[in-house]
């Protein structure tokens, strides 16, 4: 029988299979070849696919993404790695101005994937823990995905590689080797569609809408709430752009009480967008205000004591959920 694998291994397998399946797929990034990537996502790729398809680049994120765009215009399928997603900031212009607008301006799609480790909880501090999703969610033409399970990690990287548009694929580094989310994956080829949320737990009293590593806190909170007689539904958005508006509407109408939980900071976070969507589509069904649990509006701090205070956790989700359930 197949062994359960980690989230990181799932990403690795997905990329590996896509490279085997399609000769047009290639990867570029810093230290991805000989070293196998800072987190070992591309370990063994150089030996298998050769240096024509596994390209170690100089430290030049704007150059990496620009080159990926150019190659994609020529019909190839580049996957660019940001060593830490924080450094995607250096490539902002290429992503938001060139890649995102190409199809709309002159009809040429830019099928590239930009992937890298995002998120906190690993004591990485302000430059190695960021959640950059909203810079890109605000940019029409991009797709932004943030898988939170091992199954999705593989299925979504494969979907991203096959997608005709530029996809920002955010891997949560806290999940990389987390034993709790190891999974046995199907032997056969599968993808997880971009743009579709998943119901992780059915419930009737309250909805917890989340994504990424925060769904673990939501699931734990849901378990605990169950013992208190509150039935919580947990929705994993998975894709942040485009949002699965139907799934959000459905759960809001079903429970009438929505709590949105994300690790990203509060102001301008996806929770604001989801709240508006619920107001527009399901206002009459609400039995309480839409609430949110997020990180506060500050950079991610380094020290364990500070980071633990900063990040959302099960307790914070429970507190907000109880408050909402009481309406």
């Amino acid at each position, binding site marked *: 029988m197949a062994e359960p694998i980690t989230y990181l291994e799932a990403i690795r397998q997905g990329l590996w299979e896509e490279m085997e399946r399609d000769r047009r797929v290639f990867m570029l990034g*810093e*230290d991805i070849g*000989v*070293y196998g990537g*800072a987190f070992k996502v591309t370990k063994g790729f150089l030996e298998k696919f050769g240096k024509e398809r596994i390209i*170690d680049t*100089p*430290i*030049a*994120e*704007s*150059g990496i993404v620009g080159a990926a765009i150019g190659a994609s215009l020529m019909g190839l399928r580049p996957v660019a790695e940001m*060593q*830490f997603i*924080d*450094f995607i*900031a*250096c490539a902002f212009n290429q992503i938001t101005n060139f890649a995102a607008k190409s199809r709309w301006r002159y009809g040429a799609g830019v099928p590239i994937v930009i992937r890298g480790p995002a998120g906190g909880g690993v*004591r*990485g*501090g*302000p*430059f*190695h823990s960021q959640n950059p999703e909203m810079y890109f969610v605000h940019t029409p033409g991009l797709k932004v995905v943030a898988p939170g399970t091992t199954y999705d990690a593989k299925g979504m990287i494969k979907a991203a590689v096959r997608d005709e548009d530029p996809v920002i694929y955010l891997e949560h580094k806290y999940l990389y080797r987390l034993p709790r989310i190891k999974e046995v994956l199907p032997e056969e080829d599968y993808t997880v569609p971009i743009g579709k949320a998943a119901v992780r737990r059915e419930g009737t009293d309250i909805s917890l809408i989340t994504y990424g590593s925060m769904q673990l806190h939501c699931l734990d909170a849901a378990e605990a709430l169950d013992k208190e007689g509150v039935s919580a539904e947990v929705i994993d958005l998975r894709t942040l752009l485009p949002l699965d508006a139907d799934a959000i509407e459905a759960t809001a109408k079903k429970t009438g009480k929505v709590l949105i939980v994300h690790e990203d900071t509060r102001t301008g976070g996806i929770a604001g967008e989801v709240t508006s969507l619920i107001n527009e589509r399901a206002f009459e069904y609400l039995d309480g205000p839409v609430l949110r649990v997020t990180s*506060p*509006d*500050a*950079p991610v*701090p*380094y*020290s*364990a*004591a*500070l*980071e*633990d*205070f*900063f990040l959302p956790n099960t307790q914070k989700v429970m507190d907000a959920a109880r408050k909402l359930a009481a309406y």
Partner: protein
Amino acid sequence: MSKAARKESRRKQPPGARTAPEARPAKGLSPDKQLDIYYYLKLNRMVEERLSALYRQGKVQGGLYGSKGQEAISVGSAYALAPQDVLAPMIRNLGAMLVRGVKPVEFFLQYMQKEGSPCKGRDTSLHFGGIDRGFVPPISPLGTLVPVLTGVALAGRMLGRKLVAMTYIGDGATSTGDFHEGMGIASVMRLPLVVIIENNRWAYSTPVAAQSLLTDLAEKARAYGIPQGVVDGNDVLAVHEATESALDLARQGKGPVLLEAKTMRMRGHSEHDDAWYVPEEERRFWEKRDPIALYEKRLVDQEVATPEELAAIVERCTSEIDRDLAVAEAAPSPRPESCIEDIYAPLADPGSEEAAPKTPASARRS
């Protein structure tokens, strides 16, 4: 050496390596200053060794980026700065910070994320300092400091101060766009900026040859029409001298200078990395060129100090480190909720004195 012999000896060396410097008298540096330099070199290494032990005990969080084998660049260059100059260190320039007055206790507090650490537990490594202390603190994204120091140099000129802005950049980071954009602006404006390329041959696992086709990265200066220099980064006095010349040129208004110091990173990229990708032969070659050992030998050979006198300096380093580490170990953790403070300046009544924009005295025109 005959031409053939030279060629042969070059063949045996890893590319980019230079042979050991001829022992020559230190130009213009008194024996006291030479020993001062020794003290900083040694302190640099010993503080890092202690940090590395703390890391193994799980007391240091996150990355620990050492400078073993590169200490001569930090110390030699920073020692050439004038008090009014502004320095932006990079993650491997702990020695430069020591020279400019940072005490070991600050590194210990910072790396162990204690209350009273320079960044209040919010950021780590050498990401601290402040313009009031003559530093611009680095951030992790590489290359960013070059344009920022361009602005420091510009303001120095606008404010009528005879300062030079100086920073370091790795061989890898010379590939970033920011590096080039900063050099571009600084050159056409002829700003007093000195950028030292710390070419330690490896950017994480990427060898310098995969970063650039140039043999000397200082050649990048040609793109900007500015002066360049190459120096043996394992020879502290040579680094000091070359930096002094670069600072002089910059101070004279000749514009920015690009100086390349050749060295080798003698440990992993960070503490977790055992640098398995570095060829054994290359590592061994550079081990013989330890900048501190070379300098010790020179000081003794030239009778600047006896081995006993050097040992006394080491003793002084040990006791300073012991004392500072004890202070840091005893310090508590920062208040958790402090991480959401200081995002903005305190609100002031827009009509009040405090709210008036502060203009440095020398920038005011009457």
